């Protein structure tokens, strides 16, 4: 095993993500684009997190002692780190462009499977470094404040082990999907599309649950009484080692520690063996229907007033949404957020709460609907990838591209919002003026999300497809979030002020009028900005 080669390859794999840019042929310059930034952030975040946790953790724990909290954190840190690595890896795999799968030079270079697996694991952990630094800093900081540094350090050691175990598991999945999934796709046809969407949805919901602090604490408290009896769940062995250390059960500590290490080695071994067996990814092909005489369809969209080109673009984007694995995430996130909010809705619904408090309980589904529209347009241009050339070489007008992108992004959430509004009305029985104010504010927010998203998406597209499809650059995402927060804030302001009795001297119907005016202005500015950016992109791709 060549350790120098492993480190070099890990660096190359990390760089391939860091440097993936739209502009070809140039190495991104500037400190912000340096691969060292990730490490620097981690180095700074660790002591800062440790200091803040050490000083202020007590203030955030209502009625819970810091010691009890620390014990829970220390025990479950390895499991959390393992899940974090698994979720990050799964997300990365799902976001990888399918066309890039079999083109890695790594497949035909004289590199051993174990070297590749270790390099891949290290490159993945490099991207997790800032998160690890914060988690480890917090753990160590609290351990200092409760005088349990030895437990804190042991937890960190097992946390690192858990993270590697998660990363090795991901390597197993990656190797298997190289070959097995290809055969699966060939057999499944259209069913695959539905199954893949469902699988990813489940993964995403799990990811959001794991990242949700409230949910985690519920699980922690649930397990605290009975983790001793969970010896048969191997991924909990590191946690059991820490717990037995707290109970000074030396024999069990040694047993679970050795078992944990053995499990990590077993995962690595399996990852390497599977990589050896399924080295080169087989490009997959899905045959959607048997060959038969081709009959062009007279489109439904045409009867709605769309041109043939617009209809073709809309159909293409809708197909991409369900067929591209890197696109499914944009359906999964809003659906997951909506589902999670249903739990809080069930537990928080009180019939005697004020209308505004009851309305606030619908934030989850509303966020899901708005996010879908926002992300669809924010990534609308970048998702074209290198095939953007098709839009450039054909006689498409910028207006046609804008209309089709907006229609794709607005159609599903528009109908979802109608259902949501009806549900709100059934639950809250709003009076007519209030209902109008809610409807206008919600639909105004939806249109603003689409128009603002497309303006930013066409200004900051990222056409990178390898090794990971991103669709929009970081600046675009940050500015987009900022702009949309301001825009929605402005639109919601009139009904919100009225609900606080600040605008009471105004008729309630003035609030939706003000919201509608804000929406029209924002959408118009977004539309003009999109046209301008597209003109620039199409003239100088």
């Amino acid at each position, binding site marked *: 095993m060549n350790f120098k080669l492993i480190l070099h390859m890990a660096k190359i794999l990390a760089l391939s993500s860091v440097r993936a840019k739209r502009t070809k042929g140039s190495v991104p310059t500037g400190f912000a684009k340096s691969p060292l930034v990730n490490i620097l952030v981690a180095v700074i975040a660790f002591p800062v997190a440790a200091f803040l946790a050490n000083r202020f953790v007590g203030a955030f724990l209502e009625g819970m002692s810091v010691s009890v909290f620390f014990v829970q954190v220390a025990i479950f840190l390895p499991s959390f780190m393992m899940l974090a690595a698994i979720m990050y890896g799964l997300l990365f795999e799902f976001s990888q462009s*399918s*066309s890039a799968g079999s083109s890695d030079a790594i497949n035909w270079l004289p590199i051993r499977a174990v070297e590749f697996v270790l390099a891949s694991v290290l490159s993945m952990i490099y991207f997790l470094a800032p998160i690890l630094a914060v988690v480890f800093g917090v753990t160590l900081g609290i351990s200092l404040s409760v005088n349990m540094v030895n437990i804190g350090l042991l937890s960190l050691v097992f946390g690192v082990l858990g993270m590697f175990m998660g990363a090795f598991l991901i390597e197993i999945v990656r190797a298997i999907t190289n070959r097995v999934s290809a055969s699966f796709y060939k057999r499944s046809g259209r069913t695959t599309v539905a199954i893949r969407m469902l699988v990813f949805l489940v993964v995403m919901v799990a990811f959001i649950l794991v990242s949700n602090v409230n949910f985690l604490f519920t699980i922690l408290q649930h397990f605290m009484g009975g983790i001793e009896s969970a010896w048969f769940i191997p991924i909990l062995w590191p946690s059991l080692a820490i717990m037995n250390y707290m109970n000074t059960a030396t024999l069990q500590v040694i047993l679970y520690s050795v078992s944990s290490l053995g499990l990590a080695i077993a995962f690595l071994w399996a990852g390497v063996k599977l990589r050896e067996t399924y080295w080169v990814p087989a*490009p*997959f*092909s*899905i*045959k*959607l*229907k*048997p*060959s038969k005489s*081709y*009959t*062009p369809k*007279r489109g439904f969209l045409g009867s709605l007033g769309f*041109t*043939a*080109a617009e*209809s*073709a*673009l809309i*159909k*293409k984007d809708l*197909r*991409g949404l369900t*067929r*591209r694995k890197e696109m499914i995430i944009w359906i999964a996130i809003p659906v997951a957020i909506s589902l999670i909010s249903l739990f809080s809705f069930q537990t928080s619904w009180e019939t005697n709460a004020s209308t505004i408090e009851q309305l606030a309980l619908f934030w989850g589904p509303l966020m899901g609907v708005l996010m879908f529209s926002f992300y669809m347009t924010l990534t609308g241009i970048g998702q074209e990838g*290198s*095939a*953007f*050339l*098709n839009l*450039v*070489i*054909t*006689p*498409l*007008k910028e207006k046609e591209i804008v209309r089709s992108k907006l229609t794709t992004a607005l159609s599903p959430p528009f109908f979802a919002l109608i259902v949501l509004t009806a549900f709100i009305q059934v639950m809250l029985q709003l009076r007519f003026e209030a209902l109008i104010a809610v409807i206008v504010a919600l639909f105004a927010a939806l249109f603003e999300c689409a128009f603002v998203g497309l303006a930013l998406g066409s200004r900051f597209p990222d056409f990178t497809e390898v090794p990971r499809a991103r669709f929009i650059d970081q600046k675009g995402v940050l500015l987009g979030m900022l702009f949309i927060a301001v825009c929605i804030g402005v639109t919601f302001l009139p009904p919100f002020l009225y609900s606080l009795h600040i605008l009471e001297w105004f008729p309630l119907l003035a609030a939706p009028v003000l919201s509608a005016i804000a929406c029209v202005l924002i959408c118009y500015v977004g539309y003009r900005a999109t046209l301008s950016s597209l003109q620039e992109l199409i*003239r*100088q*791709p």
Partner: protein
Amino acid sequence: MSKTQTAVKLENVSKSFGTIQAVQNLDLQIDDGTVFGFLGPNGSGKSTTMKMIMGLLKADSGDLNVYGTDVSRNPWEVKKLVGYVPESPRLYEFLTGLEYLDFIADVYGLAAETKKTRIEEYLDAFELENRENEMISGYSHGMKQKIAIIAALLHKPKLLILDEPLSGLDPKSARIVKDLIHKLAGEGVTTIMSTHVLEIADAVCDRIAIMYQGSKLAEGKPAELRKESRMPDSTLEEIFLKLTGTSDIKDIVEALGK
């Protein structure tokens, strides 16, 4: 006798990328129905010139006209006239071959019946029938290239711009493309193509321009080039190597072989 129309006219066109001068003061006139070939080593400005004609790149200076339309002023009109096959096919891999062609046909606004006839004809000619309902992600490079060529031909363009069109094609499909180019030329379709395969240029092109470091070294019919270079019995490859100053390759090969 009808007067020959000018299909493409370039006057004093230049383009640079940073400090690299990709195309330098290029003048070119291509008549209607001509099969025009660009020859030149890598980085000589062939693709850049074709992209400027297509309107994909904006010239730094000079004038470009396609069938009398100023490319910089009205690129949209030019796109309606042109069919373009890029160096490597850029297709929507999540669509099937048929869905992609249907998409392209709709973008060009073809009527349903025309669309059906042409797509079926071309799929059959390029032996893609029975594979048209598979996702493009599963196609080989050659199959993708065939789809890109069909997409460029669907709307019966007046001007075809083909950047290395035969790359990756099997011999039969390559022959189909060559014959098709000849047939289309007979119907008045102008073709501009680049190729590294000099035999293909010799066999297919009516006129050839040899490009080197962004400039045009020579232009004419293959026979004229032989005559001008005073190498009447030479192959196009020998003329090309002489003109581009790369004929002295014996030493390089020997050094590499050591």
